[in-house]
């Protein structure tokens, strides 16, 4: 198995409470605009549209009235052992910096899409065309995220720019930028979720809420058995939801 697990003193992670997600899409809308993703005219082609954060609809597969549904928001899982990083021929994606966020260097990416193929979570998106905003709307672009030309791969960065802002703010306030308070740095989706289904923080920092949340008996991760060791955790009290987080043989 290629790729090696690196340890970081700060490990940013997200905990998503599926039992609280109503599937409204506010996280997706927040992400789109925070990260300068162009508005897409035919966004119904899900294989072509770009949505760093995507809400999946899960079902228990039963018929009415025993049917149940759940919504699963899926950002980049920021794997501890990312399948995408080791395959990149030009080191355009890395997991090196403290915090354990898998970076994507747009000016380095040659657009070979090998990382897209390697990622089982479908978090990587390719720029099929140059991005176009309706006239004037480019004035609303976020100054914190670059606009990608076509032909490169992009993905969720845990709103990395917000970490930089938070560190700056901590320095300005005379605090330790390497020991941010819980909530000083959260992603756009986490910030705006109306249900409070998303939590964010340093998984290794006992002062951060997520540190405890991931120990919940209801916490699980997606495709754990593949060894990706993700930094995004999900919580559901429903067993069928948890079971959909991975593949299981009938005997299991």
């Amino acid at each position: 198995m290629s790729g090696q697990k690196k340890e970081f003193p700060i490990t940013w992670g997200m905990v998503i409470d599926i039992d609280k997600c109503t599937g409204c899409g506010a996280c997706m809308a927040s992400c789109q605009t925070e990260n300068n993703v162009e508005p897409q005219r035919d966004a119904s082609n899900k294989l072509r549209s770009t949505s760093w954060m995507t809400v999946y609809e899960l079902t228990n597969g039963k018929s009415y009235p025993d049917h149940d549904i759940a919504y699963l928001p899926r950002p980049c899982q920021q794997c501890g052992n990312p399948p995408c990083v080791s395959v990149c021929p030009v080191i355009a994606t890395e997991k090196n910096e403290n915090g354990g966020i898998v970076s994507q260097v747009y000016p380095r990416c040659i657009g070979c899409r090998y990382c897209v193929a390697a990622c089982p979570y479908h978090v990587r998106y390719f720029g099929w065309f140059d991005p176009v905003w309706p006239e004037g709307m480019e004035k609303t672009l976020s100054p914190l995220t670059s606009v990608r030309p076509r032909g490169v791969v992009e993905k969720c960065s845990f709103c990395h720019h917000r970490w930089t802002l938070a560190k700056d703010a901590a320095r300005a306030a005379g605090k330790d930028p390497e020991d941010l308070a819980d909530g000083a740095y959260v992603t756009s989706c986490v910030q705006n979720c109306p249900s409070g289904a998303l939590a964010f923080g340093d998984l290794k920092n006992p002062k951060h809420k997520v540190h405890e949340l991931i120990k919940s008996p209801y916490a699980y991760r997606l495709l754990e058995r593949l060894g990706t060791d993700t930094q995004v955790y999900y919580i559901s009290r429903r067993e069928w939801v948890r079971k959909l987080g991975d593949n299981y043989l009938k005997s299991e």
Partner: protein
Amino acid sequence: MSFSEIEKNWYPEGVERCSLGKFMKWLAVLGVVALYGFFAMLVCFTYGLGVTGLDNYFGFGLWITFDLAVIALGAGAFFTGLLRYIIRIDELKNIINLTVIKGFICYSGAMLILSLDVGQPIRSWFGYWHPNVHSMLTEVIFCITCYLMVLIIEYVPLILEQKQINKIPFLHNLAHQMHVVMPLFAGIGAFLSTFHQGSLGGMYGVMFARPYAFRDGFFIWPWTFFLFVLSAISTGPCMTVLICGFMEKVTGRKLTTYRIKSLMCKIGGTMLLIYMVFKYLDTWAWINDILPRAGLTFDQMFYGLVYGRWLFFTELVICLLVPVIFLLTPLRKKPFFMYSGAILACAGVVINRYVFTVQALAQPVLPFTKWEIYSPNWAEWATSLMVIAYGFIIMSLSYRYLPIFPQEVGLNKK
């Protein structure tokens, strides 16, 4: 003297060729196909890859399948070179030139498609500038570009041997000197080529989060590394024979002896047998170890018609076991079986590259996602056809003007 008379002086010594008019018509047909593909290529470069049928599920599609298949089938060049110059199977000199040209066509064509397939072609040399030594694709970029240069070096003396060019003393000597050092290049070529055939397979084998493609392996190389090498060197010679046979059919002239072709097929068949043993072992381990480890079953790897189980059986039985029998038993003496065996072997490697490229990506790993269908569109087909047309053009010109087949004159004496 008319042009068509002058043109006759360019043919290799002692051979007959079809009329210039007929040849031009043939080229024109190929040219139309190539131009259409060229147009598609311009469209891709101008508007971006959104004009293709690729998407965020199928970042790899027809182009990558095409590249991998072409590179595998083009493997005859390095392997035959290895046998001819290093292992010194002298007889192969009668077909070596053809394999070199085939190799050149396949690799240069693949490079063309690759430059289309990357989203930022202007940055495609970043593989050298910012190489990630852990990536199989970096190895592929290295080896393919280097090997293409080797192929050019191998192809150039063939061009220099053209009757008129060869009259220039400097070029004549150059060609001679190049022939002298050819074993060296054959060696380098064999090394480079083995590695990138392997790393192409390795590319899939290392995708540990894609259970369809993932394989354990030896040291840093997943088993697919070795399987791709083996499948390439077994089908490469078969492809050479098929091209040779096809050219004989089209030109109506004998170009090599049946004995040479049979030898090539025997070599291919032998390698295919070795490949088959390993492929079967690998498949067994995949079904019984890798898939259960990922919580998946063999049944879950197939879906509908395009991803159906028939592909699996076609690849592993009809296109592997059957050609081994055809090529390694006395059946080979009969042209029908020899050619069928070669065709099946080549088809098998194409299916193999297709399923590793497309089916591996279509197979839903997340339990709440579903199988997605990929269908290449006109832009991908047109450019792929362009490369095929380009290959036909190069081969036609080479055949008409270069002394490729040493046996041609002797075999066609009236």
